[in-house]
């Protein structure tokens, strides 16, 4: 076999029905880059429309990209693609996890794993370099993820990386995750492994990833990249004034400062001033524990952790001894929604008890919730589960839909008074599929149908549903108006897109961001000031297309879209400009395949158009505008100001859109992609131009090409 660079060149295929384990060639998919892009192609070719996510015919693809294992900064992500159980059309979608799994898989010699079929009994997949076997999972089936990882680790050794499901996945809950490491969860696809009787994948690799360039060339580019990197989400200014900083932002995740410590480290570690030029302190910049858990968390923080090849440590690793009261070990790790979301079930909050420090009880509850969700392997539908509990509780739905005995057995008093112990009871019932309550994990679309939620569930901003397809906001209209709004419209789940958000929230003054926007997307009108939006522009459409394509590019390379792209930098001497050509520079050095920025963006566009075609095929309609890309009502309804009066759209103070303007926006984005401007569906001409003639042919045969 010829030498491949960046790619290992091999895809591992595992058929659980037959037990057959085989090898496929990665490079036959190279037009789709890696990870998510290649998985889209595999799903198109191999999983017919109408397949149920939990059917043996469905496949699930664990994908790395050419950057995993090379040391390119922030390249530790694993992309997981399959049919999405919580989507009403079971459309293809991806989930992602950080950690070390993808890098270990590359070291074992594999670019991807494609799992198909269904095992007749619970198994786990053991990968040690080229030695691959299905192992009996009877001892770990029924256990939480922490125990599962410990038991597999005891057999494979501590250097093995494990991705596993908990009881939620085993029980085929729509809202379940696949988790690796202590805190890296890919939400949405856990139930697929459960349906396949595949409890976990353990991988250990002793190889390496070959790089086409001379090591010093890659090191030089790494060094350059490190000069441009900011803090988590590529925030490039600090939260608090620092001697070196021209700008600050109260929203910045660059939270390090003098006098702020990882207080539970031994000895405590001061995060300090973290000058942008100091590469040794990059890992201290993002002190997320005090953001997610509040200032009280300072003395409980052991350190900040993160993923392979990532200098940004965004996962808080804390020791909260109070968790022992709930029978939990005191060590917890997570970040962002991993803390907020399980805690969101506590709809009345968790007031501090007498003698507690301010915020202590909510820190405990967030730690407890994270621990429970991570062990059971529960997904939150990007924070929606708490809002679903709120809706059902507020409207008396629990009392209506739960059998009387079940209703009476639930400790509602704990929920009312804010006792975190409610979470222990709640997640046990839901993950273990007890009674009727577990249907809260069906996901919004199915739940609303089953429990007969009212129209206000969708139309009231409070519940934050973005689409009647059942997913919520995720950097949507509040993220540069139509830019974020339209990005969310193209998704089959919460948008998981940070290409735009990292730029918008970098922390720089709006005038500077507009200047950079003009350089990147042709006009200062590509973005607006937060809460001060103007009507749709062509430049915004370009920004939308770029953001959608770059996100898919990152999930294919794989890079963390919670850091990339490097549109801005913390460097005054560069006028805070980043470098959006870095991905292509790295790709060329790593793989030896010369690609310009435009080449890679075109590859990403190809993969995104294929994703669009997959959605068309799953929904059985070419009219994406009408049937897929619409928002819920609150998005296009004026909001009330403090005085109770409507704030007119496109005046300062609101981020609401209008239906007419959103339709203009859809048309402009369709045009940018070269799709049919009426329906938003890929045309034969565009598909063929992207090398997707087979896709055009199949859509045509099904009557799904636009007229």
């Amino acid at each position, binding site marked *: 076999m010829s030498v491949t660079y960046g790619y290992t060149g091999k895809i591992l295929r595992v058929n659980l029905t037959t037990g057959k384990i085989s090898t496929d060639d990665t490079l036959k998919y190279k037009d789709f880059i890696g990870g998510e892009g290649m998985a889209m192609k595999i799903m198109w070719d191999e999983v017919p429309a109408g397949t149920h996510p939990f059917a043996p015919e469905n496949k699930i693809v664990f994908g790395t990209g050419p950057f995993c294992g090379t040391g390119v900064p922030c390249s530790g992500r694993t992309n997981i693609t399959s049919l999405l159980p919580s989507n009403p059309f079971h459309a293809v979608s991806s989930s992602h996890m950080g950690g070390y799994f993808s890098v270990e898989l590359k070291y074992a010699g594999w670019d991807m794993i494609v799992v198909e079929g269904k095992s007749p009994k619970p198994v786990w997949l053991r990968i040690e370099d080229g030695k691959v076997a299905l192992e009996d999972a009877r001892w770990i089936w029924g256990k939480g993820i922490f125990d599962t990882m410990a038991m597999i680790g005891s057999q494979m050794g501590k250097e093995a990386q494990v991705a596993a499901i908990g009881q939620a996945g085993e029980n085929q809950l729509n809202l379940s995750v696949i988790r690796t490491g202590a805190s890296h969860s890919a939400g949405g696809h856990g139930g697929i492994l459960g349906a396949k009787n595949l409890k976990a994948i353990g991988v250990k690799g002793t190889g390496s990833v070959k790089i086409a360039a001379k090591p010093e060339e890659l090191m030089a580019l790494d060094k350059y990249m490190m000069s441009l990197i900011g803090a988590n989400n590529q925030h490039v200014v600090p939260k*608090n*004034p*620092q*001697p*070196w*900083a*021209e*700008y600050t*932002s*109260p*929203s910045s995740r660059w939270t390090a*400062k*003098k*006098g702020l410590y990882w207080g539970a480290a031994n000895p405590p570690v001061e995060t300090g001033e973290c000058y942008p030029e100091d590469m040794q302190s990059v890992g201290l910049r993002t002190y997320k524990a005090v953001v*997610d858990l509040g200032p009280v968390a300072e003395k409980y923080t052991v350190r900040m952790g993160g993923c392979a090849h990532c200098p940004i440590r965004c996962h808080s690793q804390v020791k909260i001894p109070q968790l022992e009261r709930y029978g939990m070990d005191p060590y917890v790790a997570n970040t*962002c*929604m991993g803390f*907020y979301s399980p805690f969101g079930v506590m709809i009345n909050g968790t007031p501090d008890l007498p003698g507690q420090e301010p915020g202590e009880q909510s820190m405990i509850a967030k730690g407890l919730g994270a621990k429970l969700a991570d062990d059971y392997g529960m997904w939150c539908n990007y*924070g929606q589960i708490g809002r679903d509990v709120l809706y059902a509780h507020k409207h008396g739905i629990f009392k209506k839909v739960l059998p009387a005995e079940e209703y009476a057995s639930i400790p509602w008093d704990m929920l009312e008074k804010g006792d975190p112990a409610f979470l222990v009871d709640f997640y046990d019932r839901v993950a273990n599929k007890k009674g009727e309550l577990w249907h809260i994990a069906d996901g919004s679309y199915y739940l609303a149908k089953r429990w007969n939620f009212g129209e206000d569930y969708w139309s009231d901003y409070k519940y*934050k549903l973005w689409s009647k397809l059942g997913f919520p*906001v*995720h*950097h*949507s209209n*509040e993220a540069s108006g139509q830019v974020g709004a339209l990005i969310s419209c193209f998704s089959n789940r919460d948008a998981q897109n940070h290409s735009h958000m990292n730029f918008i929230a970098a922390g720089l*003054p*709006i005038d500077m961001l507009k200047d950079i926007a003009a350089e990147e997307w042709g006009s200062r009108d590509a973005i607006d*000031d*937060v*809460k*001060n939006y103007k009507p749709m522009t062509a430049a915004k459409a370009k920004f939308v297309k770029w953001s959608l394509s770059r996100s898919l590019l990152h999930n294919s390379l794989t890079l963390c879209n919670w850091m990339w792209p490097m549109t801005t930098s913390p460097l005054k001497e560069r006028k805070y400009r980043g470098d959006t050509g870095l991905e292509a520079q790295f790709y060329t050095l790593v793989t030896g395949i010369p690609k310009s920025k435009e080449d890679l963006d075109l590859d990403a566009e190809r993969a995104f158009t294929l994703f669009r075609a997959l959605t068309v095929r799953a929904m059985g309609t070419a009219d994406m505008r009408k049937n897929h890309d619409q928002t819920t009502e609150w998005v296009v309804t004026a909001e009330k*100001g*403090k005085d109770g009066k409507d*704030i007119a759209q496109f*005046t*300062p*103070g*609101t*981020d609401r859109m209008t239906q007419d303007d959103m339709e203009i926006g859809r048309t402009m984005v369709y045009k940018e992609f070269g799709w049919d401007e009426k329906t938003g569906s890929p045309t034969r001409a565009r598909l063929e131009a992207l090398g997707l003639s087979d896709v055009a042919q199949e859509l045509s045969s099904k009557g799904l090409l636009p007229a």
Partner: protein
Amino acid sequence: MAEETGPLAALMEKIRADSAEIRLTPASCLVPLAPDAESAAAAIEAGADADIKMMRGSAERYYFSDRSMTEAYAKHLYRLAERDPVRLIADTTRDESKTYPRPTPVAAFLESPFSMTQPEIDAAIAAMASIQEYADIRTTSASNGALYLYSATHLGAAHADGLAEWIEVGQKENP
């Protein structure tokens, strides 16, 4: 270029050394290196290197080197040195309303480099309300009760309301 020596070099060295320690150099502190503050100021004005910057206070000149701190940070130190908490809060708020633009969380003044106490902040904001010079400084609050300040010269009320709610509440629900 030959390295500069003599009184001016000493003055610049002192200013740079102070800036490296993240503090301003009041002109009065240059007196040991010059006959008086005025002659120090004249020497610096006449021939100091470009990194040496001056800010004129109500009764004092302050110097810093922008090799060690930005003008933005030096402004904070200058306002602290002037010991006028009302002006400090108002001018900081005006800067942020103009530059970004955004309202300023009152809680920011609890933190470094301001490190004010809550009673000090409350007193300053109360005093501001009765001084015409600060009539542009307005307050708004987010739904969680957090108080923000903004300058009406640079930011409209509805925009400030919306931004405060987003910074304080919205983005935490959509991280």
